[in-house]
């Protein structure tokens, strides 16, 4: 992709662009370091948001499996409500709106772009994570929890020792998918001023006015990130035997 872009650039006579975005060139190296400087923030935001979402999703999913219909209702309301909110409005609400609520409650909790992005991504994603847990848990045959009950395990023990260890193999691939989604959605954090990949690219576009080259490189950066995650997940799946057919 990069080489064809270079070829295209040559034909169009964009020498300047080539020099500026070629890693071997001193100026290019400089521009690259600006672009790549957002990488740490993107990774950090995504990893923390995903970690929160994985825990929050399970907390949301378990009441959905209860025999108590009020608990099930709480689960449904959370999932339907949260997944109906588009990410960008939610980001604005958290970043600009939530501090006002905090202030009216007499609390002084500032929300910076970093935590604003994490809270939004984590909550938004947790509704989907919860549904992934649900489908994973429900895919385990009923006989498994019945057998657990007949050997005296309570609900919590049944989940912990019998259902979840089996469900996790089926949950892992879609969960990895969600993580990739979070990495990409973290680009929205740029609009509230978070200095991550997309924000850096935008800043560079403003000073260099080379949108084609810069945004193309930005896409390549996300591509590399996602490919690394995919490889990591494949490795994890193999280790847990999730690729075996049951």
């Amino acid at each position: 992709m990069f080489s064809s872009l270079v070829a295209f650039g040559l034909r169009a006579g964009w020498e300047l662009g080539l020099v500026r975005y070629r890693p071997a060139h001193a100026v290019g190296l400089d521009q690259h370091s600006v672009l790549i400087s957002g990488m740490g923030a993107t990774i950090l935001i995504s990893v923390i948001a995903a970690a929160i979402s994985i825990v929050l999703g399970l907390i949301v999913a378990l009441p959905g499996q209860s025999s108590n219909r009020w608990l099930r209702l709480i689960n449904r309301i959370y999932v339907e409500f949260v997944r109906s909110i588009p990410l960008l409005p939610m980001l604005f609400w958290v970043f600009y709106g939530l501090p006002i609520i905090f202030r009216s409650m007499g609390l002084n909790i500032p929300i910076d772009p970093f935590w604003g992005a994490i809270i939004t991504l984590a909550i938004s994603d947790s509704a989907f994570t919860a549904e992934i847990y649900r489908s994973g848990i429900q895919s385990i045959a009923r006989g498994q929890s019945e057998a657990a009950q007949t050997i005296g395990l309570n609900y919590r023990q049944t989940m912990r020792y019998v259902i979840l260890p089996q469900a996790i193999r089926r949950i892992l691939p879609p969960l990895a998918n969600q993580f990739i989604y979070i990495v990409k959605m973290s680009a929205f954090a740029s609009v509230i001023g978070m200095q991550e990949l997309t924000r850096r690219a935008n800043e560079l576009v403003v000073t260099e006015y080379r949108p084609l080259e810069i945004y193309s490189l930005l896409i390549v950066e996300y591509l590399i990130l996602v490919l690394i995650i995919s490889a990591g997940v494949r490795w994890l799946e193999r280790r847990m035997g999730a690729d075996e057919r049951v």
Partner: protein
Amino acid sequence: MSQAAIEMVAVNKWFGDFHVLKDINLTVEPGAKVVICGPSGSGKSTVVRCINKLEAHQKGTIRLQGRELTNDPKSVASIQGKIGMVFQQFNLFPHLSVLDNLMLGPMKARGLTRAEAEERARHYLERVRIPDQADKMPKALSGGQQQRVAIARSLCMEPEVLLFDEPTSALDPEMIAEVLDVMVELAQEGMTMIVVTHEMGFARKVADQMVFMDQGEIVEHGPPDEFFANPKTERCQTFLSQILQH
């Protein structure tokens, strides 16, 4: 007065509008062996599933050693593995080794140490004659071996009563005998057993009560000699002639 191991008085159950169990009365003395047979859909599995509260009953009383079992979660929890169950589909935990399948209940529900649980597990594996399979995964075993592991798993909880829900129906013919042999031995050792089965040879050998069910009712109930020699009702005659004709 000796206390019945299991007592069912006028038990009724509906699945929606469908009346699955109609006024079931059944008393099982300690050490007794009851065999329940009947055409499919007659409610025989539902009877045993109500006894260990895998299913809720709507009317009537079920007692375990004189203590009433209600559908209240606390009551269900109080059974705590006192009523063992062997399922048609074995329902072994596929992610755990044979030994871990056996040790899970004793360790988590009974609070045994790992060493105690392992000793107990090996003891019962010996009794079902597969001590050498302890470290294998369930799916590496034949159907007959899996079902014997399932029996051993129930025995590890040292239950007061052992329920069997068509334990040989999912087995290849050549494996039925090895499972029935184990069940006959258990019966001879004095275990209280309620067995849903079509294996009439087994019934003749061990049962001291035969129960014939049809359309949710106990149609016939008596000692096996009488039951097989002169079934009183036409429904029972027809059923017996159908399953005994080969």
